């Protein structure tokens, strides 16, 4: 864990310094393009994290794996935060470039739906007195919501949108100069490590919390027994 935290912080710091200070501006967007170094990693984490949530939900529903339930429960608030950051930075980027904070085009709307799915999952798994029933309901919600992930990804190709198509995650070579691409990939790696570290730390805390509760329960039973 300390190794993960340290490498996450080092890579995020290096990526942000590279992106914000030492990379060139864009020929048409100027310095505003630097919002991308936060916006794009958050968008990838929002989608990648949700795919991870769906995998955990499959494990939970089919193999009834208790650790999958616990990880899913701790993952969704972090995923919601990444999606919120993606929406907020996108809005800050849209105003100077497109001329608007928000439009209801297919990409922006589907990412907003993704945000509500994250929030809905986080709320639903905590809404039951019996944690197992909450985990099951959350897993079903997460799997229903997975149809939204390809919609987010391909919305810019399937429909006319204000948002431009993908620059990096496409089949032909990236539509981005390497001097902009490499700091972006560094930031994406760093934020992914950070995301993983936060989720792992939360899951470990949840496991320990469970263990403490089980021990307390066992002690209470022992003290009750002789009486």
């Amino acid at each position, binding site marked *: 864990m300390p190794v993960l935290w340290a490498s996450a912080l080092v890579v995020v710091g290096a990526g942000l310094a590279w992106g914000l200070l030492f990379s*060139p501006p864009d*020929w*048409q*967007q100027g310095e505003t393009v630097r919002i991308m170094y936060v916006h794009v990693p958050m968008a990838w984490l929002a989608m990648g994290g949700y795919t991870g949530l769906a995998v955990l939900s499959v494990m939970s529903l089919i193999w009834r794996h208790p650790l999958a339930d616990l990880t899913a429960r701790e993952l969704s608030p972090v995923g919601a935060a990444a999606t919120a950051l993606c929406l907020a930075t996108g809005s800050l980027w849209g105003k100077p470039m497109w001329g608007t904070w928000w439009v209801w085009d*297919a990409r922006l709307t589907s990412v907003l739906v993704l945000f509500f799915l994250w929030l809905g999952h986080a709320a639903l798994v905590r809404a039951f007195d019996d944690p197992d029933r909450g985990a099951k309901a959350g897993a079903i919600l997460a799997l229903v919501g997975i149809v939204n992930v390809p*919609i987010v990804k391909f919305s810019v190709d399937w*429909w006319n949108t204000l948002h*431009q198509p993908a*620059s990096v995650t496409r089949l032909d070579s990236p539509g981005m100069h390497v001097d*902009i691409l490499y700091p972006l990939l560094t930031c994406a790696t760093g934020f992914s490590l950070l995301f993983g570290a936060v989720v792992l730390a939360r899951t470990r805390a949840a496991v320990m919390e469970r263990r403490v509760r089980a021990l307390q329960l066992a002690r209470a039973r022992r003290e009750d027994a002789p009486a």
Partner: protein
Amino acid sequence: MTRKKRRLMVLLLAGLGLGTATALTLTAFQDNIVFFFSPSDVLANRHSADRAFRLGGLVEAGSVERRTGSDGRPAATFRVTDGAQAITVSYSGVLPDLFREGQGVVTLGRLLPDGSFRATEVLARHDETYMPPEVADALRRSGHWNPEQGAAPPAETWNTAPRPREGRSGG
């Protein structure tokens, strides 16, 4: 073992059903999900004059005329094209910073009886290419690309090009 297999089958079937339902719904609502119509769509479908809609495309090279409107606000007329068809757009107000000939725009407004489009809002739509200004200058100087004529040349021809170290290299 069999219970796990049964759960897996149920999950796969439910996923298949859900995916099909989503695909059908999205296909059915195809026309409602598009954010804007291209000039070819508009000319083919005869949009009625009393409904506002969005028209999008590239600003045709050499078509932009800027003037000051009767109320003292800046105004402009330009043609929006998708390569096949073009529609004349008039707009009064401040254009976005990214607005230029060859740039993508999305305009909201109504069709006038003379076939031109009266816009109340103009948004800029930039493409998915990102390059440092020096590389863009080099492409322009060498004649490989004129931004007013449209999209940049294929990315693999420039995205590993070394960045010339003269002029404005603040960064």
